[in-house]
């Protein structure tokens, strides 16, 4: 499993909410992608994850 470009240990039964909890990420003002599915922070589903998932967790910062 890959999270934000880094390999991440996968375990059987891991869900997206559980992953965010263990990564200590609060869903406000972030967005999440699992493969080609894109979720606003407020509507992140608690979907089960799979070993080959590519997950992206992003936020807005200052930029030009």
């Amino acid at each position: 499993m890959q999270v934000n470009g880094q390999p991440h240990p996968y375990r059987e039964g891991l869900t997206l909410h559980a992953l965010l909890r263990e990564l200590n990420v609060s869903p406000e003002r972030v967005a999440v992608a699992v493969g080609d599915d894109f979720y606003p922070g407020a509507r992140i589903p608690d979907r089960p994850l799979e070993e080959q998932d590519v997950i992206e967790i992003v936020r807005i910062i200052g930029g030009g």
Partner: protein
Amino acid sequence: MFPQDTLTIGGQVFTSRLMLGTGKFTDFHVMRGALEASGTQIVTVAIRRVELKAPGHVGLLDALDLSRYQLLPNTAGCRTAEEAVRVARLARAATGVNWVKLEVIPDPRWLLPDPVGTLRAAEQLVEEGFTVLPYVQPDAVLARALERAGCATVMPLASPIGSGRGLRTGELLRTVLDGAGVPIVVDAGLGVPSDAAQALEAGADAVLVNTAVAEARDPVGMAQAFALGVQAGRAAFLAGRMAERDHASPSSPAAGVPRLPDPEVPV
């Protein structure tokens, strides 16, 4: 100033012609002051990965009064059309806004955009319902192609991003402006308000500034200076400049000067 002189992008109407970036500011307080002083209505932001396991902190969006500004997320840092499209989708998910400042920049030294990748990404994003503002070199043929692809504006560069070298591409900018069907927003490289005024005087519809404000000794004062420069350039464009002359032409009447009967030879 000219209430009737408005700028329309993606169906939205703006009275300010100065877009501001939010990068490089020392702190949110200075940034807010600069946004305020600039009178801007369109503000660019970037998308970055959350630092995992890092302690939470106040975010940019908490620092912005979102009711006052149209957010314009960018795809800065993306090297390919594919990366840019994905970042645009992440931006939409993160902000709820479907505007995107499209940057496809393979070159790290000059940060110059890829014309082919930019066009391909623009076509894809327009199809997905984004309001697309692509960053490009001042290429009039590419600009027309981006128009046909449904882009909301075209954003040609004045000089390399963050260089503050000013409007060095005026010779090509005039070809982009000539017959443009969407607003032309001069982006990147402007260093002082006279650079912005030049762009507006030439017929550009707006400018985007970030480094010139954020790196000024007094960012708030410089933000106000750019606001004035943009207004000056636009007002001059609307007022119609005088025709240039090759030689001199006196401002005072030539006749009736109280000459002395026999002037000495000058000097």
